[in-house]
């Protein structure tokens, strides 16, 4: 049985910059993990850097090229099935997403509308995956603030944080 592993983009970008993304993904596949990310996170590693590369292309062509190479690696990993992009069911988990937004807005002392999409989507995906199979979901992030935000939902979901994978 594959172990479902929600990986934050902080981990993915970190390994990619170390030129170890493929090694990390293949190692996890070998360990029977299925790496899953929500759509908002796919946008963070593909759409946003692509746009950033376009912005800096004139002033820093080498850097733009390198960022586009990174985007390509993420696209390839998704195409090869090493990373699965999952849609969060907003209808079913809207309450969870609202709660995460509220929690993060208090944590960061910002209005709810200013909470970035990736954090609530990642937490909602963990809860959604658990709800679907009632099996432990594994999570990896380098972001302590995000883990703090996930903690209050521990009663709803059996999850395990994999430190420094």
């Amino acid at each position, binding site marked *: 049985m594959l172990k479902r592993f929600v990986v934050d*983009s*902080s981990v993915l*970008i*970190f390994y990619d*910059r*170390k*030129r*170890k993304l493929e090694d990390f993904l293949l190692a996890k596949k070998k360990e029977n993990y299925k790496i899953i990310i929500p759509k908002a996170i796919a946008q*963070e*590693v593909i759409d*946003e*850097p692509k*746009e*950033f590369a376009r912005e*800096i292309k004139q*002033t*820093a062509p*080498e*850097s733009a090229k*390198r*960022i586009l*190479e990174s985007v390509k690696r993420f696209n390839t990993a998704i195409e090869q099935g090493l990373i699965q992009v999952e849609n969060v069911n907003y209808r079913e988990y809207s309450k969870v997403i609202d709660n995460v937004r509220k929690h*993060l807005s208090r*944590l*960061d002392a*910002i209005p709810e509308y*200013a*909470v*970035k999409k*990736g*954090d609530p989507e990642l937490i909602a995906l963990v809860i959604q995956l658990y709800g679907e199979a009632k099996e432990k979901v594994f999570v990896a992030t*380098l*972001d*302590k*603030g*995000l*883990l*703090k*935000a996930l903690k209050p939902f521990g009663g709803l979901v059996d999850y395990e944080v994999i430190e*420094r994978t």
Partner: protein
Amino acid sequence: MSEKTVSILRAIGNPNKAKIIAHLAKHRGETAEGIGKHLGYPLPTVYKYLRELEAASAVESEAKGNTRVYFAGDFKLEVSPEKLMEAFEEQTMMDLYKGRFGAEGVEKFNNVAAKAKAGKMTFRQAAATLGITYYEFISLLEEVGALDA
């Protein structure tokens, strides 16, 4: 020029790191402790260099029982002024960030990054506070070594 070549050039641009490669070429399968002892570097520095050299594929390692042993990577470089120019003209993410936000922006980044590292705000919120993408924020943290264990 391939990314690997650029990474190795950057890595060996630091003579201390270059000495580690030279040492490993002679002493295959050396431990980090052995390298530190032989070259007189503090152990945390040796580990930092080894991490960077491994990331650049200039050094390889393998587990041997409870310890990890290191080997010089199998690489050959052709260096010319043009190739060096090509290797080093790329700007770092911090160069780009400084170019956009100046010294004041760097100070703000340091403050926000410290808060985010301490878990007082999420990385996404930190990126939004700085007005940059999440990709840039993580890249900057990685570049300044704030994500290393």
